[in-house]
């Protein structure tokens, strides 16, 4: 039976794709994984590969055409099979959109359509990744809940829409309501808890149900300002010691990779976020996802726009590693050669316009992230030091915060740590 070839969602935000060039002609035989065509997404030029083997019977769209994701672009089958007009009896190898389930690298999965029996992941690491068969709840009118859970929720006045279900297909069960209350269910918790644990070090993130106060804050503040209720925090940092440190490092490094001010800022942000996980989070409409690892996005200007490559697990990387990675990512971003996995899944973003002599600006939050840091130029400014006026190199940075996730004091504490780290750069290696 012939199989339809569809335009796959090759990036998480892709809604349509332009078929740049067919790599296989009609009548050519194809194996699973063969490149069928090149497709231009909203971010990059990607490869569309065959999900089934056979002969490319038909190209349904011409090179240069733009078609929506999931629509058919061709047919693969046995020579001689009649596929004209796309007979409805055939099955489509549709792309699955598993993007909202947070698996370990929080990145766009390159659409596995026909997954072969997955080679066993080593079992011991299995239980942590996520509660069994409970994908991140999709916004939907219908709340799946057991009759018992509905009764308990009704009696306690709990909004089931605000709870993440841990039953089959995300169904809300009694245990989830007990968790909201901080109660323990008397089922053998020893058995279940490791599978649904929210604190295992192996978990890439922690999903926290919204408290009533958090829900009210979210609702009211969103009403007053756009879809993301943003507020801004600005701090000025004395960069003298960073400048000294950088000169010393670069003098020592010689030709093998210099460190920029931005690299040091990135390193400091990653370190500060590690200490303030409340700012390293995603707003998920019905819950907040606190990430255990810092995946740091850095805004890079490209010819026709902007892209934010991601430094993964930035909190674990040395300044030297960060410097090397930013150079590589920024370079390839400008050439539009980044894979989707390299520019998606960030948990916090830094945007730096210092090189354009911008003293200070505010940046727009990149949802679902809860914060972004806008970094200005380093300027010589008269400043009071120990009661005397001195000319110091100073830098202003402004953090945009999603008030649904981050409150004023929460953001301020993070900025305070960041300022301390930059003013005492030795703390970064301590």
């Amino acid at each position, binding site marked *: 039976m012939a199989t339809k070839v569809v335009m796959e969602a090759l990036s998480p935000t892709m809604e349509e794709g332009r078929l740049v060039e067919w790599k296989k002609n009609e009548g050519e035989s194809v194996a699973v994984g063969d490149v069928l065509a090149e497709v231009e997404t909203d971010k990059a030029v990607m490869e569309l590969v065959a999900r089934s083997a056979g002969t490319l019977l038909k190209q349904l769209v011409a090179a240069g055409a733009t078609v929506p994701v999931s629509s058919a672009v061709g047919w693969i089958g046995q020579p001689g099979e009649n596929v004209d007009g796309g007979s409805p009896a055939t099955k489509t190898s549709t792309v699955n959109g598993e993007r909202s389930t947070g698996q370990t690298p929080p990145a766009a999965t390159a659409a596995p359509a026909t997954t072969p029996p997955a080679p066993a992941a080593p079992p*011991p690491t*299995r239980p942590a990744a*996520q509660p069994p068969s409970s994908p991140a709840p999709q916004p939907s009118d219908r709340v799946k809940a057991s009759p018992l859970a509905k009764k*308990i929720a009704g*009696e306690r006045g709990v909004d089931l829409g605000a709870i993440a279900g841990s039953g089959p297909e995300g169904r809300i069960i009694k245990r989830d309501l007990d968790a909201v209350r901080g109660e323990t269910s008397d089922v053998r918790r020893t*058995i279940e808890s*490791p*599978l649904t644990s929210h604190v295992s070090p192996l978990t890439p993130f922690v999903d926290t149900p919204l408290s009533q106060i958090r829900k009210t804050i979210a609702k009211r503040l969103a009403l007053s300002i756009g879809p993301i209720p943003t507020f801004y925090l600005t701090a000025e940092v004395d960069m003298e010691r960073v400048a000294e440190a950088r000169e010393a490092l670069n003098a020592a490094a010689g030709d093998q990779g210099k460190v920029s001010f931005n690299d040091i800022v990135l390193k400091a942000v990653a370190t500060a976020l590690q200490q303030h996980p409340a700012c390293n989070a995603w707003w998920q409409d019905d819950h907040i996802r606190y990430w255990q690892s810092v995946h740091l996005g850095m805004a890079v200007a490209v010819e026709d726009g902007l892209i934010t490559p991601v430094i993964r697990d930035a909190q674990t990387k040395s300044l030297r590693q960060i410097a090397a990675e930013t150079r590589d990512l920024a370079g390839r971003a400008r050439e539009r050669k980044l894979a989707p996995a390299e520019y998606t899944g960030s948990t916090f973003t830094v945007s730096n316009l210092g090189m354009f002599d911008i003293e200070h600006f505010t940046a727009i939050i990149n949802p679902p992230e809860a914060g972004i840091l806008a970094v200005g130029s380093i300027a010589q400014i008269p400043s009071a030091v120990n009661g005397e006026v001195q000319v110091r190199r100073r830098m202003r940075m402004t953090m945009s915060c999603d008030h649904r996730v981050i409150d004023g004091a929460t953001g301020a504490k993070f900025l305070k740590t960041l300022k301390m780290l930059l003013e005492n750069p030795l703390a970064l290696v301590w």
Partner: protein
Amino acid sequence: MASFDVIVIGGGPAGYVCAIRAAQLGLSTAVVEKDKLGGVCVNIGCIPTKALLHSAYALNLINHDAKALGIEVSGVKGDYGVAMKRSRQVADQNSKGAEFLMKKHKITVLRGTGVLQPGKKVKVGNDVHDATKAVVIATGSRVKGIPQIGLEINKTSVISSDEALFLEKAPSTLAIVGAGAVGSEFADIFNAFGTKVTLIEALPRILPVEDAECSEVIAKSYRKRGMTVLAGAKVQKATVGTAEVTLEVEAGGKVETVTVEKVLMAAGRAVNTEDMGFKEAGVQLTDRGFVKVNLATLETTAPGVYCIGDVAGPPMLAHKGSREGVFVAELVAGHTPHPIKYDNVPSVTYCHPEVASIGLTEDQCKEKKLDYQVGRFPFSANGRARASLETDGFVKIIRDKKYGEILGAHIVASHASEMIHELGVARENEFTVEEVDLMIHAHPTLSEAIAEACLDSMGRVMHI
């Protein structure tokens, strides 16, 4: 030496089911079995006893109810030897069925005793086989005596279920030590075949893990049929001869002397953990002698070595072991199986009437200080039960007072084993007593009593 993805040691209901699921998921799988496939369950447990219980049921029916049913019979005589031979055929059929399933799923059966070697290897005979993904221990359990009181199994006058299942004729007198499911089922069988049965239980009542009301109904039924039931009774001394055993049994402050032809030991089972290289391979045991497992993954203390079934811990039930087998197979294949709900494993005793339960007993609810409400419905008020002369028993539902959650369900009925699953489905899906009643029950059925008991728990029973 051969290499497999998964090697399962033991071909009982935990092991062979694990192997099938692993094979279904595309893993190359081997099962090590030293005897017949199907293990204790199929060969010397669940299956042959059900065949004997059916003979006992027919005998009781003919002896007690035939006249009322309009059937005239004379010269009715039970022949345990014939019933035993039929039970063997049934067991062999099932074991062959398991063999066929191994072939069907292309599972290699390694004949012999599996000895675990360090590093996911299993030695069978002189060959060492390699498991690339996992070794699964499913070595099961066996009967045990109580040598401390002189009741060591000698296979002639002191026997276990292993021997009872092969007797050519029913003994004239029999004492059964232990009145759990096994002891109570054999009491039912031998009583029907004319044996004078004394059932001895150390705990305060027979079927001690079931709800007290269930124990009461069965004890009453047994006494009515002429059995001696001694609960809260301790065997203090045993004098074992070849043709006779004398027991001194203390119950309620009095010491009774019981002299019988045979004693059947049915007080617990021992797990098979010895001489299989567990210690050397890093597989540790618990204080109680079971294999120590991570309850979330059923992995033992040796990485890549899993354990399922009786040897992994209680409850020692075939269906619990099978579920663990499926769970481990899926886990090893890289899937994310649903956690096993150990509080939702049905328990069934196939005596007459049958006893089946799921969840908590009323005593456990009291201990946990739960706020509960009990609903009951007797089969004496059920049309179907009356029509088939099976009015012994009841349905008892224990629900949470506030939300109606089904905390426990207990059924004593001629077909309780087939009825309990409705309540298992309800509990699995968190249906409350209301949803169980809302399900329209066919009339007339025994299951109507379940809906009635649910209604009774809400104070609106209809047919009493």
